[in-house]
């Protein structure tokens, strides 16, 4: 399998939305993975992952009472219910966000075979605001989890479990 593609998603100048790019920046140089950052055009994700067999997306999730909580979602190519995805950020002026990019990729059979989303629950998304301490505190743990994920994805055998979502202690 080719090396996994890691995509950090978010706007570095909008408070906790910066957590995706921030975690991605910590993973640059990580062996066996290609790391990029996206902060606007969700449609471009389809191009980004066109040749990738395994993709890890890192994004901020909407505030839901537990800032810093880490969510892990594995999206199967044929699964139909991605309601959780709708709570992730990457907003678009054409109302075309991450959930829509995944739905379109699925309709076009362009979803990577392995698509894992790490989402860190945010608290504050104001323009110009710094990342909150609760979210910053979750960065190291998320980086470690993704490093393990990359190691497993880069190994000879990959689990073929279907779509799923689980909360991970942040």
């Amino acid at each position, binding site marked *: 399998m080719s090396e996994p593609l890691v995509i950090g998603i978010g706007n570095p100048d909008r408070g906790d939305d910066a957590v995706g790019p921030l975690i991605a920046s910590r993973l640059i140089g990580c062996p066996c993975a290609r790391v990029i950052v996206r902060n606007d055009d969700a*449609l471009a994700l*389809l191009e980004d992952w066109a040749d990738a067999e395994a993709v890890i997306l890192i994004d901020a999730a909407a505030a839901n009472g537990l800032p810093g909580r880490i969510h892990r979602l594995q999206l199967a190519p044929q699964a139909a219910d991605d309601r959780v995805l709708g709570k992730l950020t990457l907003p678009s002026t054409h109302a075309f966000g991450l959930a829509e990019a995944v739905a*379109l990729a699925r309709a076009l059979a362009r979803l990577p075979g392995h698509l894992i989303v790490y989402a860190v629950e945010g608290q504050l998304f104001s323009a110009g605001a710094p990342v909150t301490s609760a979210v910053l505190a979750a960065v190291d743990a998320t980086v470690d989890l993704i490093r393990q994920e990359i190691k497993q994805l880069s190994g000879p055998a990959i689990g073929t479990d279907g779509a799923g979502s689980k909360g991970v202690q942040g």
Partner: protein
Amino acid sequence: MASRRLRVDLIARVEGEGALELTIEAGRVTQTRLSIFEPPRLFEALLRDRDYREAPDITARICGICPIAYQMSAVHAMERALGVQVGGRLRDLRRLIYCGEWIESHALHIVMLHAPDFLGFPDAIQMAQQHGDMVGAGLALKKTGNEILRVLGGREIHPINVRVGGFYRVPGRSELVALAAELERAQQTAMRILGWASGFEFPDFDRDYEFVGLRHANEYPLNEGRIVSSRGLDIDVADFDGAFEERHVSHSTALQSVIRGRGCYLVGPLARYSLNFDRLPSNVQALALEAGLGPVCRNPFKSILVRAIEMIYACQEARRLIEAYEPPEVPAIPISVRAGIGHGCTEAPRGICYHRYEIDAQGAIRSARIVPPTSQNQLSIEDDLREVAGRHLDLPDEALRDRCEQAIRNHDPCISCSVHFLKLQVHRT
């Protein structure tokens, strides 16, 4: 007869946030209000006291879809203020990067935003399940346009390589030649999209617009030309203020533009095409005629075909420019700073985009004025809506709402640029 009020609170598949309110009294549409409620973005104030060299990068931030339009209008205005003119290969590179923006913007609107209206799908995702090949084709074209922006502009969104006088860095010939094969495929793909769209059903809906656009002596207009209209206007870009005025209206955070003494007008693909059909290469003209367009198109629903024609043209023009390309000796011509006033007007994908700057002897911007395409089209869109709603008063509110939203999307309005828009409300009494 009962009154009827229809409101669309947030119009989908447009750039930005706005709303539409229709009032129907005694079986007649008495009011259409296109409300733009995105907060004003105050770019003109933001530019004040900044260095003239910052204008292209600051104004590029007005729009993620058409940043080149803002960069080009800004650099042309500044260059006029500074008494310099960029020609030759640097001018060609500017035309090439603008082709890239037209390709990515038109591909996005045709396939992702407009086509679902004609095929009865709520969005492009649903449409992709039956028309995946065409959605894929649109995405491929968008990618090609973005690639031109990346190579010439440094990155796809909000490029950073355009400067007053030229570019910060110019590409080597091999970098552009690598794009040529992709553009040849892109042109074929654009022709397939035109063929697909020409099979759509279009309502009989010709409107008596006053078209306004640029006209150049021998080119289909992108960066340069006089501002002309279908009713005889023919002015230099510097005379924009004498011919047009912007007005505040209470229901919109965007200014509305009118032609002084005459009223509303239309900018964008329909206007540009109808004013400049004779400037298209003969093979592109033939494709337009084959697709069912005449030399003038007054039916806004057919704007999808005109965008496809412009996409084909942009691919062909980009190929021509690349074929002739040799790197310029310098990436930018030297500038001597002086006080002055400059005007720039270029053809954004959605229509003419006008900038005016006054700079002082140190090059600081004393005042800035930016008139984007969508603010110029607001009144014509309201008139379209009055006509569309008037013809379909028998429809239930939901169907009428859908029809009105489509009429708005015909013009690919960029609300984020104009505030510098959409919800629909219909009031029936």
